[in-house]
């Protein structure tokens, strides 16, 4: 069975613990990198990361994640959404189709 992990600032993620997800509070992106590297070696199906963390380590993360079953998803942090996820989605669309058909 696979598990779900949530990594981010403590204030944004402690609620997920109540649902039964595994939470890993971190303060900096550097700390998050260590945690995530460890997590990617385990059986994690979904990895939720807060936007402020994921924006720092995204490229490195996708190198690993694209080869495994793990789905990496950004979630908004306490400051609200910075549209990080939508921007990445747009990049995916451009990669596949060659132009931005989603937001035009």
């Amino acid at each position, binding site marked *: *069975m*696979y*598990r*779900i992990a949530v990594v981010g600032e403590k*204030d*944004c993620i*402690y*609620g*997920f*613990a*109540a*649902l*039964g*997800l595994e939470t890993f509070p971190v303060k900096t992106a550097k700390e998050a990198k260590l945690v995530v590297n460890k997590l990617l070696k385990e059986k994690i*199906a*979904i990895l*939720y990361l807060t936007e402020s963390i994921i924006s720092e380590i995204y490229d490195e993360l996708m190198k690993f994640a*694209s080869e495994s*079953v793990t*789905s990496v*998803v950004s*979630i*908004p*942090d*306490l400051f*609200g*959404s910075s549209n990080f*996820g*939508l921007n990445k*989605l747009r990049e*995916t*669309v451009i*990669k*596949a*189709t*060659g132009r931005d*058909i*989603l937001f035009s």
Partner: protein
Amino acid sequence: MANIQINPTRMELSRLKKKRIMALRGHKLLKDKRDELMKEFISLVEENKMLREKVETKLKKSNQKFFLAKSEMTEEVLAVSLLAPKQSISIDVTKRNIMGIEVPKFNYATRTPNPNDIYSYGLAFTSSGLDDAVKSLYEVFEDMLKLAEIEKSCQILASEIEKTRRRVNALEHVVIPQTEAGIKYISMKLDENERSAQVRLMKTGAIK
């Protein structure tokens, strides 16, 4: 193609002709695959966008609720209430097949069937704001799961489409024109040889 050395022989000619037919067939197949993938991808992407917007607004609301709940009680009480969750969720990953490409499908299972097990604390020392916050998070969870599934599928499909598109283009703009040029070159050369043989024979008087 002038820069590629081809032996002007009949063997080579028939080899190139076979290669051309194969390339044309492959090109057609890959083009169909690309179009079909693109159709799937676009509908997935639209769903992805919608879900993400929905999840983000819902999460924002739930974050606000948590923030309020936190202000209504002390940090220690809050930490203790969420320290030992009753519920735990595990995920079962199955595969879904889109045009021969496997994308993940997540099914979740809760450890206990009781939906009220998300409240892992006694109600005496916590505010009702916390209940509300936890409930709002629980409601968005299912969408978050779906989002994770679709986002991963989109990424996999996107890289597959990119690969297929590159192959289609390589066949269309490189392999097929090159083979056709080779075929033309060889048939010209062979014709030329035949003509010169004819002329030589005429000159020596072997034929009139």
